[in-house]
């Protein structure tokens, strides 16, 4: 089954490159959607079915729809990645350093974790739900408040005030 994981992650990385280098924002949006699909596949393979499904339901189903919706609504034209090299280089050198630094760090650090055999029910809805509403009920409530705030924010931002009404 490991090959499945590697295919999923390979494709995910491939499509995420697509997100970054696609000329047309719509294309990058769609490639992000496919990346999300593969990421949810990774989740399922890592014993997190609930998260995987939720990823599709919430992330792909709602957020990406929103993104595409807005992109189409605003009818955004293609954007030339012009002068990427200059633009790129000016900012690029630092992330590169970070990259190299990180790779070494993670390779050195990670083996300290040990893989614990995990029972069948590990990532199921029941388990995650239990801990979500059990020890992390406060976090759950705060998340709901964040969403409420976002809703109010959106309403306030997009409501056409008197003077703007065409």
């Amino acid at each position, binding site marked *: 089954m*490991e090959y499945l*994981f*590697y295919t999923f*992650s390979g494709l*995910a*990385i491939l499509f995420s490159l697509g*997100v*970054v*280098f696609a000329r047309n*924002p719509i294309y*990058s949006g769609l490639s*992000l959607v496919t*990346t999300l699909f593969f*990421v949810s596949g*990774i989740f399922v*393979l*890592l*014993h*997190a079915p*609930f*998260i995987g499904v*939720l*990823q599709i339901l919430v*992330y792909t189903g709602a*957020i990406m729809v*929103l*993104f595409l919706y*807005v992109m189409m609504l*605003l009818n*955004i034209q293609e*954007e030339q*990645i012009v002068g990427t090299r200059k633009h*790129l280089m000016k900012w*690029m050198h630092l*992330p590169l350093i970070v990259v190299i630094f990180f790779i070494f760090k*993670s390779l050195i650090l*990670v083996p300290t*974790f*040990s*893989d*614990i*055999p*995990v029972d069948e029910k*590990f*990532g199921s809805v029941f*388990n*995650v739900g*239990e*801990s979500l509403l059990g020890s*992390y009920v406060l*976090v759950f409530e705060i*998340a709901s408040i*964040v969403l409420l*705030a*976002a*809703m109010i*924010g*959106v309403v306030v*931002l*997009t409501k056409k005030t008197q003077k703007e009404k065409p």
Partner: protein
Amino acid sequence: MIVPLDHVLLVSFALFLIGLVGLFLRKDALTIFLCVELLLNAANVAFVGVARSIGDVTGHVVVLIVIAVAAAEAAIGLSIVIRLHQNKKPLEVQKLNELKG
């Protein structure tokens, strides 16, 4: 499923890196949003990976919260973009720098 953890972390880091590069590379606001979403996903992968290896469901709870917050952030971000568009402002990030020090 015996996927060693450092491979999962490597994958998540690759995604994070690509998102980062995209962030610096792209100019218009929407694509930058997408790259941010990519970053968040990379983080989620890492969380799930570690949760799987230490057998603790907390990782999943965190991912849930991250998704919720991402949803809120996307909503707000997009409504700002719409507002910008309505006021005929350019969407390129470089041009939107009135908030200068």
